[in-house]
């Protein structure tokens, strides 16, 4: 492994091998140290006047002494954040406009949204023979009969002509 590192330092390793080796070095602290030492040897061999021992440790120490800076992040990140926020705001306001528009059309739409999920589709009353009895019995005491007079009794007779088609069309059930 150490040889591989030296080969890498000489720039004679293939690209894929180099990548995996660098990965190893990053994860293995011993190899990382070796990597540092080899570089130091190289440096000493080339420039014997300036020798620094374990520079990385010193840098780390100095960094720990540095105060934490609570400053805004880089410009690019900030801009991306703003774009996301803006598009979110846009879709929110679109919902707002739709809700507002529906409120303009009919104020009772808002509370009825809950019931739309379970839209009930009652079958026509003609499918039940006894329904009319209940209808007439109910109508007698309904305020709508008071208002419409006999006109509301049209409900009880308006089904006659539908009887035949319903029997022929089971889909309508």
């Amino acid at each position, binding site marked *: 492994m150490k040889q591989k590192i030296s080969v890498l330092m000489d720039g004679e390793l293939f690209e894929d091998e180099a990548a995996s080796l660098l990965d190893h070095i990053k994860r293995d602290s011993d190899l990382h140290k070796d990597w540092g030492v080899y570089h130091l040897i190289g440096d000493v061999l080339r420039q014997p006047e300036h020798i620094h021992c374990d520079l990385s440790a010193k840098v780390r120490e100095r960094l720990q002494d540095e105060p934490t800076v609570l400053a805004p992040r880089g410009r690019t990140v900030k801009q991306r954040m703003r774009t996301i926020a803006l598009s979110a705001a846009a879709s929110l306001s679109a919902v707002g406009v739709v809700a507002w528009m529906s409120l303009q*059309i*009919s*104020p*009772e*739409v808002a*509370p*009825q949204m*809950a*019931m*739309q999920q*379970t*839209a*009930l589709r*009652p*079958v*026509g*009353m003609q*499918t*039940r*023979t*006894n*329904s*009319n*009895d*209940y*209808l*007439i*019995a*109910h*109508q*007698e*005491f*309904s*305020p*709508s009969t*008071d*208002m*419409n*007079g*006999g*006109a*509301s*009794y*049209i*409900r*009880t*007779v*308006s*089904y*006659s*002509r539908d009887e035949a088609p319903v029997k022929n069309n089971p889909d309508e059930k």
Partner: protein
Amino acid sequence: MAMRLLVVFCGLLLAVVSNVYAEERPVGLDWLEVAAFAGHQTDYSGVFVYHYENRVETSNIIHVTEVNGEYEKLESLDGPKREIIHHDGQVWVYNNHKMVQVGSQQGRSRFPSLLPEQLSALSANYQAKLLGVERVAGYNAQVILFQPKDNLRYTHKIWVHTDSGLLLKDAVLGDKNTVAELYAFTQLQIGGNIDRSWVRECDSVGLHGKGLPRPPETAKDITPTNSGWVADTLPSGFKKTMEIQRPMHHGKHATVTQMVFSDGLSAISIFIEPNDGDEDDVDGLSSRGAVNLYHKVLDKNLITVVGEVPPHTVMQVLDSVRYNGK
């Protein structure tokens, strides 16, 4: 001079303020009372359309008031000939000149039954709004909107003739302002020379030469009762207006208990009867215009809820029906 101006100004201010207070009282209710009264007391004849579920039917109606009460005749103008006679709290239904059904309005007053407590329930559960004047069947009509404050009832929009107070048009609006049902006069004659020949026929030889049979349900068959049945989740403002025992289905079955609840504009009826295993009495929902009906067998009883309320309301009411004991 300045003093006089001040007095005039104060007077104006007072007028404006009192006007504002006057508007706080739901003025729509006055129109409702007027319409209910005029509907009974006015002689009229005309043609109206009934629109529901994308269908339109045209009918002829004649309403006259005689010394012995109101007479009303309804006649379908399209499809098979159907006729309804309405007199003295009784209803006769003819299909192709054959009497098919008889109903009665026993125990119901001949005059408008908009009680003060119903009117207060109405203003508590609906927002009444005047929407200006429109023309219907050639007459000027005040438009009034009754918007429910919850989603358990329908929106009602009525057009009331500004002179006679007759209801000229009536729309029941459901989910997303779709029309659940609509009545509208297309031609109307108020007062004047109205055909009354059929009234005398009714009383003497009878319509279609058969005479008007007395309905099987007479006053003594319908009795007030306290059955002990209750519904726990009626929409707010629905007050019990009556509870009776009555024969139904042409007396074929046992007597039926009927409870009626009303919020002033709509009513919900609950019918309770022993379940006799009739195949027609299957669980389920059906509708006719603004009226929804829901059947369900509960233990040994068949419960039926009928009302001018949305389908989910009749279902909710039925699911809360239980026997509470006497």
